[in-house]
């Protein structure tokens, strides 16, 4: 393993242009595996328990294509703004490895289900475009486990036969930040369309980077390296950053970048294997699965079943004039974004709408970050939010009381009025009652009252606080303040 120094200290990066392409594998969210009826979710299962003769590759078994996986792949393609093929087929990729039960992987070679596309990726207050080359379906392999200090390896085939979609981009990203933004964009597009659980922790979504650098202004790509298996946006960014720096350093030192496969150990990229002779996988059409014709009716059916796409959500939110960072804050929590859409649809009063969207993008986002928050408990509804907004507008709740109610409503379907009453947060609006409390407070605090009369405005805050205290917070501070000023400045 080579150890390279971080290089961007003295290397003139602006003299170079980086080109980054990403291959992303996502696990499709089907109930069963790609070619058999075994469970597709073995995250909690013991090794070799979600297996059957088909995914074990026993003699005589045949693959039967999971129709749902095909539909999800089509939906993913639509979400990637890419072309869904009319004719597609499966092929065998032949190689030997203990985690590959049949000695070949069923994948798609020259007629992938998804063709070219283009994805607009927001980045800060701007956006850039990444072209999609293709996306194809394939089955995952199992995994090898290497027990410590053992002279053998163990094979776990739970994952074997899991349906994957591999999304291949053009090298259209030119900075680590762009690479990260694209990875994030794929994540949310797949999450919104529902094609995958995109559980990064369990490897539901994995990224391979192709990185090369070239002198700025040159139109010839540099020699690229491939960095395998990043499982977070942050690692995509860091690995790209490291690798760009490493390659520039090599060139600055008069060395060449060699075409090779590298790994990422959270700190640096390291050599896994140099590019040997191109491996010959002897692809040929899978004779056990007839070619697929995805005719118009099939495509229309899939389109009809599409949930709102990320692009649609973003577009709708943008039309309200909401700033991009707030839009993205909502989008980061799909259920919140969906709620936002409903709010925009159902709440017609602009002031109320703005108030609610503001709650969602600030207070609610903050509440959702709480450690013990569980989406299963999420209960917030448009009805609740509308009522809360009305109560605020009618001065029944002050803003801090509204936030308290909101905090409760995030995990409770009860009405805001019920919650506010229970917590005694409703402001007393009976003018006579407030007036008598105000009079009482002025009487009890003659010095402060005099200070206000003398124009020392600070004292009004003190008196307001006293009134609030006396009314147990159920008064509107603004009304109290107005009343005090009125009485003392007469």
């Amino acid at each position: 393993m080579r150890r390279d120094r971080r290089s961007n200290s003295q290397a003139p990066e602006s003299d170079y242009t980086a080109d980054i392409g990403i291959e992303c594998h996502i696990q499709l969210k089907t109930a069963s595996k790609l070619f058999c009826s075994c469970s597709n979710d073995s995250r909690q299962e013991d090794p070799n328990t979600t297996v059957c003769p088909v995914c074990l590759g026993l003699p005589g078994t045949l693959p039967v294509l999971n129709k749902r996986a095909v539909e999800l792949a089509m939906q993913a393609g639509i979400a990637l703004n890419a072309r869904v093929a009319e004719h597609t087929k499966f092929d065998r990729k032949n190689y030997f490895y203990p985690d590959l039960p049949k000695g070949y992987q069923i994948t798609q070679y020259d007629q992938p289900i998804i063709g070219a596309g283009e994805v607009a990726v927001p980045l800060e207050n701007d956006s850039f475009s990444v072209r999609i080359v293709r996306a194809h379906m394939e089955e995952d392999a199992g995994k090898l486990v290497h027990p410590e200090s053992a002279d053998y390896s163990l094979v776990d085939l739970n994952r074997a036969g899991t349906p994957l979609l591999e999304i291949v981009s053009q090298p259209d990203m030119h900075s680590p930040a762009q690479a990260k933004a694209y990875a994030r964009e794929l994540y949310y597009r797949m999450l919104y369309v529902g094609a995958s659980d995109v559980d990064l922790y369990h490897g539901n979504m994995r990224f391979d980077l192709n990185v090369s650098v070239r002198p700025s202004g040159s139109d010839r790509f540099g020699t690229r390296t491939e960095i395998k298996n990043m499982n977070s946006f942050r690692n995509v960014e860091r690995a790209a950053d490291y690798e760009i720096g490493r390659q520039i350093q090599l060139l600055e030192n008069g060395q060449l970048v060699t075409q090779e496969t590298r790994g990422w150990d959270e700190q640096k990229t390291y050599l896994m294997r140099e590019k040997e002779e191109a491996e010959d996988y002897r692809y040929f059409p899978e004779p056990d699965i007839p070619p697929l014709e995805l005719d118009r009716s099939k495509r229309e059916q899939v389109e009809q079943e599409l949930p709102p796409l990320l692009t649609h959500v973003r577009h709708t939110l943008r039309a309200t004039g909401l700033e991009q960072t707030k839009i993205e804050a909502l989008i980061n929590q799909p259920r919140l974004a969906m709620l936002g859409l409903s709010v925009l649809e159902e709440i017609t009063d602009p002031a109320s709408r703005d108030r609610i969207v503001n709650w969602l993008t600030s207070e609610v986002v903050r509440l959702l970050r709480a450690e013990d928050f569980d989406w299963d408990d999420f209960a917030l509804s448009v009805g609740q939010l509308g009522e809360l907004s009305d109560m605020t507008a009618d001065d029944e709740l002050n803003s801090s009381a509204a936030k308290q109610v909101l905090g409760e409503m995030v995990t409770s379907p009860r009405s805001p009025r019920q919650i506010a009453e229970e917590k005694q947060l409703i402001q007393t609006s009976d003018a006579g009652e407030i007036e008598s409390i105000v009079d009482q407070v002025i009487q009890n605090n003659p010095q402060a009252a005099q200070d206000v009369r003398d124009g020392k405005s600070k004292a009004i805050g003190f008196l307001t606080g006293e009134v609030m205290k006396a009314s147990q917070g159920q008064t509107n501070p603004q009304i109290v303040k107005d009343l005090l000023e009125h009485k003392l400045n007469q």
Partner: protein
Amino acid sequence: MSAIPRTRPSRQGQQQQWPKLAELAGQIKNGERSAVEVVEACIERAEAAEDYHGILKLEITAARERAEQIDQLVADGETEGVLLGVPFLAKDNFLTNGQAETTAASHMLETFTAPYQATAIEKLEAAGAIMLGKTNLDEFAHGSSTENSAFGSTKNPYDPQRVPGGSSGGSAAAVALNIVPFALGTDTGGSIRLPASFCGTVGYKPTYGLVSRFGVIAMASSTDVIGPLTRSSHDAGFVLDVLAGRDGRDSTTIAREETYHIGEPAELSGLRVGVIKEHMGEHVGRGMRSATWEKIKALERAGARVEEVELPHDSVALAIYYIIAPAEISSNLARYDGIKYGYYTSSADSLEETYLQSRGEGFGDEPIRRMLTGTFVLSSGYQEAYYKKAQKVRTLLRGDYETVFGTYDVLAGPMSPTTAFKLGEKGDPVAMYQSDDLAISANLAGIPSISLPAGEIDGLPFGLQLQAPAGRDKRLLDIAAAVEGVI
């Protein structure tokens, strides 16, 4: 020559023929015969014919138990199942989860116990048939003589010095010896029909996809089919009727026709019969050609309109088959790596050594030869010249058939270039491959084909091959029944 094989001294295992399947099942149902009695007779005959080595393993205990159950059912008045109490043997590349291992006649799978059953076996058992055991074959069905079995050759019932044909040689011999009323085989490039012709039985290759391949050890997936070896085309139709139809576990299966039972044989008068010119050339033995012409003349006399037809790409069918089939074989046999099941070399000390030794020792010469050929024709740089070109020619061959079937109801010709050859006679693999020269086009085109016993040449049986368009299995069987009556 006679359509009914004569009793010959060389066929010592030869026993009295079984009645037609429908009749046998009927006798069991009405109590005329007991299932136990039938099973015992089969076991007795199998033991008497042991020298022919057609059977690898009998499941005697299970078969007896099943027969007893059936007799009890009959006694209780329950007579469901068209094959109730009828015993059969299955080629040992069908997965069965009883006593017997499923070996594909290979050391690689010598100890492999299947955890599930083939769809074909399930369907037969559901129809009341009794699985009696497993028959010998060329290793992984690679061969035309059954000599490639890792467990010894099967011998021809007509002459134990000769091969029974292959690769379903054990099933053909068992039916010819009347051990069982029918047996199952697989036909990737003639493997049901060639041994049927060598042993004087009926061998039926259905349209590709008509019978589920699930649970049958794959040879070449795009041409593998499953079919029966029987004593008559009626019986072939009877078994096919049980086997045929879509299977949710095999995506290549197709919808079945309403029935495959032969009622009335087809009308021969006016039937348009094409004689495949390429199957009557110099590469076919003179005796075979003249014997075949004689049978075809019999059809003509019965009123059929016979003409010679050309299938221009048939002449290269064998060549393209030996590109496409090995390509698929090289991939299909990759799973036998010594790691999960099957033959494993414990002396290996690395992953690569495990692969090399387990596969090198577990497989016999012919599978290795085919895997090497297949790997070569799929390799980059050669795939265009071999595999892809072969697929193009295959499409042209299909076109040839489509054209011809626009005019003719059925095509006819000899099943094989010669009658059964001597054990050890064909050491040269290519000479062996050529035995299937006349069978292979039907596999590449996916069309149904049947070999009918047409008599004997110099004391050895030969078969008349009939072919029909894809999906016209019922029509082919009806025609076969009529042809059977006049040859």
